[in-house]
């Protein structure tokens, strides 16, 4: 099978690529990243590291939900999976060089297991089964307290290699930055790949997907596994940076929190995942420092409703609307 030969004189161009814009954007981001540690205090840098860690996990959920359209309510459990590998590394005498592989392997297995129901289920039923997997994970942690500390949680010794200390704010910032850039590159590249196209097609029209030969179930499984890998790796770094893990971070409400990030930021967009992660990390911090820690979930719920009603494309859509409005005014 080959592409049909061109029979008309002119050819339509693919989307115009502006390499200079992209390079400029990346350079600007790198500059900001390099400058921040000199401009902000320790705690702010630590918070920035948190944002980057959550961005990686949110990118994962964006792959399975924003891109492939599958509502995964087990996402926080994948995050927790990676976190507990870090937490249990010392008690289980797991050497450092083996940990990333262990996280990767467990994430692939877990993502695959959670994805198995896609063979027979879709839509609401599938989401409920993912919820059940999440509940099972929490149950597992709570009922193995001798090993995992149960519902009380467990402290995580910092990751130290040479002079590197994961619980030092600057070192955490660098580690998280490296992780986040890798994850972002992967996510962007997914968007430009055939696998990424498959996921969009499965999300928007399974009928159309099947009619061009897309293997729908396999696509969903790949999406789940990718989301699990992103979340688990992020969770692993999270545990080493924060120094403490407890199952309440990784329960249903944790998964809902990630959903808020994806939807609020703008589902299906890499930039949206970053906006969303920034929101779920920075806004609670802001409320806590202002003295109203309980206001965040209320606001979160209200904001989610407002965004869904008014701005379904999330903050990304809002930002582009603002930009185009500003551009229009500039031209006038």
């Amino acid at each position: 099978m080959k592409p049909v030969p061109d029979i008309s004189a002119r050819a339509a161009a693919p989307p115009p690529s502006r390499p200079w814009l992209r390079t400029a954007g990346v350079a600007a981001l790198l500059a900001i990243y390099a400058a921040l540690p000199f401009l902000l205090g320790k705690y702010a840098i630590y918070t920035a590291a948190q944002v980057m860690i959550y961005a990686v996990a949110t990118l994962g959920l964006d792959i399975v939900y924003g891109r492939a359209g599958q509502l995964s309510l087990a996402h926080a459990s994948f995050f927790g999976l990676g976190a507990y590998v870090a937490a249990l590394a010392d008690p289980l005498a797991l050497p450092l060089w083996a940990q990333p592989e262990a996280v990767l392997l467990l994430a692939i297995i877990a993502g695959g297991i959670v994805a198995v129901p896609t063979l027979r289920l879709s839509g609401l039923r599938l989401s409920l089964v993912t919820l059940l997997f999440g509940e099972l994970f929490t149950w597992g942690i709570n009922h193995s307290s001798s090993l995992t500390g149960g519902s009380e949680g467990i402290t995580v010794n910092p990751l130290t290699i040479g002079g590197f200390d994961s619980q030092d704010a600057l070192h955490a910032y660098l580690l998280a930055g490296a992780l986040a850039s890798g994850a972002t590159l992967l996510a962007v590249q997914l968007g430009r790949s055939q696998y990424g196209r498959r996921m969009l097609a499965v999300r928007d029209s399974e009928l159309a997907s099947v009619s061009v030969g897309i293997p729908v179930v396999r696509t969903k499984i790949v999406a789940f596994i990718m989301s699990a890998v992103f979340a688990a790796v992020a969770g692993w770094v999270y545990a080493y940076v924060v120094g403490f893990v407890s199952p309440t971070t990784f329960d249903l409400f944790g998964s809902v929190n990630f959903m808020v990030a994806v939807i609020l930021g703008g589902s299906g967009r890499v930039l949206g995942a970053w906006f969303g992660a920034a929101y779920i990390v920075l806004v609670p911090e802001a409320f806590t420092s202002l003295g109203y820690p309980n206001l965040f979930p209320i606001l979160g719920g209200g904001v989610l409703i407002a965004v869904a009603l008014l701005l379904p494309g999330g903050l990304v859509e809002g930002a582009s609307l603002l930009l185009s409005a500003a551009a229009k005014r500039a031209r006038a």
Partner: protein
Amino acid sequence: MIQAGALGLNAVSVRFGGIAAVSEVTLAFAPGTINGLIGPNGAGKTTLLNAISGFAAVSSGRIDLDGAEITAMATAARARRGVVRGFQTVRLLEQESVFDNVLVGCERLPQPDLLVQLLNLPAQRRCRSRDLDAAAQIVAGLGLGPVAQRPVAELPFASRRLTEIARVLVVRPTVLLLDEPAAGLDTRDRHALTETLAAYHASDPFTMLVVEHDVDLVRRLCPHCVALEMGRVIAAGPPAAVLDDARVQRAYFGTGGHA
């Protein structure tokens, strides 16, 4: 030159509950031919397309493509063998652009492994430019250039219909099934569509089966035509002969009447 796309149906029946939507249909479509499929509403035309493309299960009989039986083959597998279809109600990715919708059709070209894609290795870069070129060519060829970057949800029906056709044509099909492609188009767009399909077909023939109510379109486009009524074949041959057939006229117009 060996041409693929010989499609054979042998006593194919499709039953839903107690009702036979398609009954004992035996047809043979030669490779590279354009065939019309006509008949009054409820004759089973869409069901027959569904059976060939895999969207409806065959209750009895067999379907062969180039000698290989595809009766029980999964829909996606048939698509990978080149059996692609367009839908009566156009099925698109609403939030995506025309261009991205057409790119989806490049699924049928050989693609690299997941890791190669994610790491943007040279094979991925090659395949991507090949896909982009193919999509650009068909988008231009169908006149969708000016709207290529717009989300399909915003476009008028004619453009949406053309986008779906671009999606199925971006990679040469083996058997193309179109379900009322002209429905909802005005006369000028119908003519354009007919000519475009004819031109694409002429440059590199593939088997085509077109369900249509527009008798003129069938006459102009299809050298061969089949008429269905109540799930059975009642006539087959050149359009002029089929349309003059008394049984076909009775099926469409009641007693006697004219075409």
